[in-house]
């Protein structure tokens, strides 16, 4: 589904070379919910950017949905991003000048869907995140949690195979973070593969699978979840 073999990424500036990823190996299968943790600067975002075709890489191979993406041009990569991948960002990245409807519409237009198809998908996905009645609102009129829900609706509207999230709850308080996580779990249950970078061990432990990134390499972990503790959190949000 998503297979990285010995992927390397080096950032070069005038003074230094940063080996953000070195021989990065990972396989994510269909339907998984993977949480990625690791120290700051370990390469989590770099990995996610490469996985989401936002960035190119130097060595190794990357197969997305069975397709080797190393040799695609910018246009093909854009199209693949649009069709197969949904992005969720730490700071939501909604377009401030567009209302919720138009925000969710953005990737659908790049997809080339017809007007009615777009309208249907926008309404459905805003419905899913519980904001169908706010379609004409601007992002600035919503709370952070609501904004992230809109971003999730935008990411889902095109029915992507993958949802990639870089610290989706990083800017949210615990309560809102948990409700976003619930939403992601629900989406995952409906079949979308999710890879989520997070700093929060409690959130990470609720994913089906945890990987730990360190110095640009993967070291897999499992079994650190503490169910009792998390259920207590969930109880707290009602």
């Amino acid at each position, binding site marked *: 589904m998503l297979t990285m073999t010995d992927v390397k990424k080096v950032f070069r500036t005038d003074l230094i070379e940063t080996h953000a990823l070195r021989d990065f190996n990972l396989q994510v299968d269909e339907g998984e919910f993977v949480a990625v943790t690791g120290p700051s600067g370990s390469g989590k975002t770099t990995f996610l950017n490469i996985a989401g075709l*936002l960035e190119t890489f130097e060595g190794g191979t990357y197969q997305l949905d069975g397709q080797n993406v190393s040799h695609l041009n*910018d246009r093909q990569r*854009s199209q693949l991003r649009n069709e197969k991948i949904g992005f969720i960002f730490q700071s939501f990245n909604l377009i401030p000048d*567009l209302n919720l409807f*138009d925000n969710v519409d953005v990737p659908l237009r*790049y997809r*080339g869907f017809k007007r009615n198809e*777009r309208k249907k998908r926008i309404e459905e996905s805003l419905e899913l995140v519980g904001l169908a009645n706010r379609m004409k609102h601007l992002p600035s009129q919503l709370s952070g949690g609501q904004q992230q829900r809109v971003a999730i609706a935008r990411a889902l509207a095109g029915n992507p195979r993958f949802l990639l999230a870089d610290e989706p709850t990083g800017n949210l308080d615990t309560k809102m973070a948990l409700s976003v996580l619930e939403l992601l779990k629900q989406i995952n249950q409906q079949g979308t593969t999710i890879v989520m970078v997070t700093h929060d061990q409690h959130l990470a432990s609720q994913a089906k699978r945890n990987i730990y990134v360190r110095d640009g390499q993967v070291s897999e972990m499992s079994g650190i979840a503490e169910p009792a503790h998390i259920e207590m959190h969930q109880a707290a949000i009602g």
Partner: protein
Amino acid sequence: MSSNQWEIGPIFRALMRNKVGAILIAIQIAVTMTIVVNSIFIILERAQRIERDSGIDEVNSFYLTTTGFGENFDPKSTAFNDLELIRNTPGVLDAIQINAIPVSGSGWSMSFQTEPGEEKETQGGAIYMVDEHAIDALDLEVIAGENFLPIDVRFRQPGVRDWPDNVLITKVLAESLFPDTPYQNVVGKTIYISQTEPMIVKGIVDKIQAPWVGWDDLEHTVLTPEITGFESNRYYVRAQAGQRDAIMPVIEEALASSNKQRIIRGMRTVQETRERSYRGDTAMIKILSTTMVILTIVTGLGIVGLASFSVNRRKKQIGTRRALGASQGSIVRYFMIENFLISTVGVSLGAALTVILNMLLVEMFSLNALDWYFVPAGMIVLWVVGQLAVFGPAKKAATIPPAMATRTV
């Protein structure tokens, strides 16, 4: 590519939330269009004025004035001797004595009418007093009737008030005087000068302008056959091709030494005279062209500035759009369409302002009304200027990497 990807609706709605910059640029476009279109219209009109053919061989001709003094100065013999001297100078094609120079700005005019008496309809006409050499010296053509004969040419003393019996008139004057008669048939007809004095039209010449370039009836011209005996007389010389500059000093010198009882002054080429007469028009064209170019450049830079500013401000948004699947082309297109929408508001307002300014100019300076097609042409030009100006910033926006979306800055 489907029309969904054009994003006109969202671009417009986003623009409406950031109106100020866009409105300022739209106004700038409108003002630029107003001034550019009216300027071009005025420039073209002036250029057309300047380009009008005077009918004479301007390039090879020059003129000078001789003024006699002293007891023994005899205007009549001087004139005949001078003309003989000039005409026999090598390099001269022909020469005449003439009372005024076409295009020069000063001359004589009289009223002409087809019936004698007061309160008849008249036509103004410039008078050139010349002899039978005028046709060759001025490079005219007698297109009906005949040229003067030497016998037609009289000597006009100072103080004489009457006029010769035979005249040549231009085709345009013939048609103005006799609107219902083909100009050929005007030959032989009698016209009246000073209300009652008859003259017979001996011939029709193709074209020669009056001295006053701003006059509406610029081609109303009458040639009367006479040599004048005034204190000051003017000679008009047409050189053989390419000889003008060489013979000017020769003739000046020959005249000066042939008769010491006069001074020679005001020698000037017809080309220079034309330049002086149209100096105002030429200056106007230069000023308007410069204004136009500067204004267009400033507007172009304004568009570049606004677009660059908004690209910088929207870096994250552009990265996000790329992350969501926008190709580089989509990003370029976004800014091009945004500019097109701003320009459309600008040129629509500009179309109205253009017409209003033209109406004011017509009202206040009695300029002509703008031809309608100047307005759409101006709109297209400013649309194109806008698209060219925004293309650079749009290309730059397209190079913003998709990974910009995940950068936490």
